[in-house]
């Protein structure tokens, strides 16, 4: 029984951690290209979950189609937001941009409340409810789908950055904006693209999280906050770091929640990401995989 419990905690941790990783990746992409923290990341996630849910429940759209439409919508949302709120701030101090994303978060949250109310909306069962057994451990199929989905997405993103021209342009811009400009790379396009990708991966994270939890409400946006320790832990400008940080925080949360919470009466699960964050930053100030600039000796 003990072993099964541990395995379940580990699997929970991996699944939740992988979703953290996905959302954190969106966060890192924006940070790398424009050195701005996007504090509306959690709201992006919520928008995705609500739109998908709305399509499935109200318009009886099959889940896969709803998923695709949500992606398109999120991509559009990312571009529109970049155009209307971020681009006018181009060249202003980073702190203004961060404040703008904070405002954006409030606006998005309020809009969602107006359209969908504040009650939890149950997520339809898109995965068969009976679990599969891996050895003695029962695992929900939703979890497996979620893990696979994140793995595929992260691989695809990595390939995108490594092998496509747009990916190269984004990495070049992250490395040096003015030099990228001098190559004829349109930095505006790169910004738009990074917001577009960030909104899409967050939306996927939102849908997966909604499906796993079985319901969608405003608390989903807290993920945006949770992602902050994840990215700082991994190193603000490293996608691999975001993935690693996500998995670590997910596992840590679930293990501590499972073993320590019963002993102290709860609360450890919520605090432990931040404790880990502080400890790791003491040893490695730039995060686990964050870049310390290359210095030639």
């Amino acid at each position, binding site marked *: 029984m003990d072993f099964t419990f541990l395995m379940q905690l580990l699997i929970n941790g991996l699944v939740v951690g992988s979703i953290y990783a996905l959302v954190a990746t969106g966060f890192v992409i924006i940070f790398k290209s424009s050195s701005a923290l996007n504090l509306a990341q959690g709201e992006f996630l919520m928008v995705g979950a609500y739109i998908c849910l709305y399509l499935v429940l109200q318009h009886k759209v099959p889940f896969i189609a709803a998923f695709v439409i949500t992606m398109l919508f999120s991509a559009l949302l990312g571009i529109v937001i970049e155009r209307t709120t971020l681009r006018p701030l181009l*060249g202003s101090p980073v702190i203004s941009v961060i404040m703008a994303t904070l405002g954006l978060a409030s606006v998005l949250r309020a809009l969602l409340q107006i359209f969908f109310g504040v009650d939890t909306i149950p997520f339809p069962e898109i995965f068969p409810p009976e679990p599969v057994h891996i050895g003695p451990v029962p695992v929900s199929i939703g979890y497996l789908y979620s893990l696979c989905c994140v793995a595929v997405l992260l691989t695809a993103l990595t390939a995108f950055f490594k092998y496509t*021209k747009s990916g*190269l*342009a984004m*990495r*070049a811009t992250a*490395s*040096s*904006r*003015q*030099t*990228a*400009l*001098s*190559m*004829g*790379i*349109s930095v505006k396009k790169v910004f738009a693209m990074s917001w577009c990708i960030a909104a899409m991966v967050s939306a996927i994270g939102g849908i997966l999280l909604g499906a796993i939890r079985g319901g969608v409400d405003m608390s989903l946006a807290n993920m945006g906050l949770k992602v902050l320790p994840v990215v700082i832990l991994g190193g603000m400008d490293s996608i691999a770091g975001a993935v690693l940080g996500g998995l670590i925080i997910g596992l840590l949360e679930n293990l501590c929640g499972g073993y320590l919470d019963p002993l102290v009466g709860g609360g450890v699960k919520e605090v432990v990401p931040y404790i880990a964050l502080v400890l790791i930053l003491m040893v490695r100030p730039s995060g686990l995989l964050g*870049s310390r*600039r*290359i210095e*030639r000796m």
Partner: protein
Amino acid sequence: MLKVENIQVVYGDSMLVLKGPSLEVPEEGIVALLGANGAGKSTLIKAISGLLASEQGKIISGTVLFRGDNITGMAADDVVRRGIFHVIEGRRVFQELTVEENLAAGGYTRKDRAGFRSDLEFIYDFFPRLAERRRQSAGYLSGGEQQMLAIGRGLMARPQLLLLDEPSLGLAPLLVQEIFSLIRRINTERKTAILLVEQNAAIALSIADHAYVLENGAIAMSGKPEELNASGEVREFYLGISEHGERRGYKAMKEEMRSAFPAHRA
């Protein structure tokens, strides 16, 4: 080919950095733009390449014509697409990217895959040291190699006009010689016109067909290298090349010191 006419540039809406200089680069020519630190040389070529906008600079009057088209104040990416590539000062390679990825970024505006491939091979032939390091992070290259990469990256865009900002900056004299002979070869072998900004006047004049001296944001003089070299005044005041060489200069300074501090005589 390129014609800059009475261009005026301000930074941050207040500081007039360029006070209406004009210059011309002929087809397939090498033109040197000389002058002291802060004379406005870099600003002038940023005004041509459109990079001014990224530094809160603005062209308030004057025109930039490229092959007859008015490109004044055009966005940087459109300028590159028209065939002008600006290799910016301080060999700023993308440190985290490999050598080959840096070159690929230089060819970002290219559409022809075959030409892209053959240019890549050309650049590796031209700069064999880059070929050896094509998979390495550019941040680990030596200063000279980074400068070669910055120039090679520019060639990947197949420009008709290459704007080079201080290619000699911070390099050892032998490397400077090597870089400049490569610049000369680019000009003759690829028929690329070059506008060269330099503080090292002697070496710039050795490869240029024509030169301008910029002082306080205005053209102080221009002419063929041999004309500029011939005038002693020009050499002393604008080009920093002393008439009688280093040793004489040092001796003269010692004399001055002695008369200023007679106590040393004892």
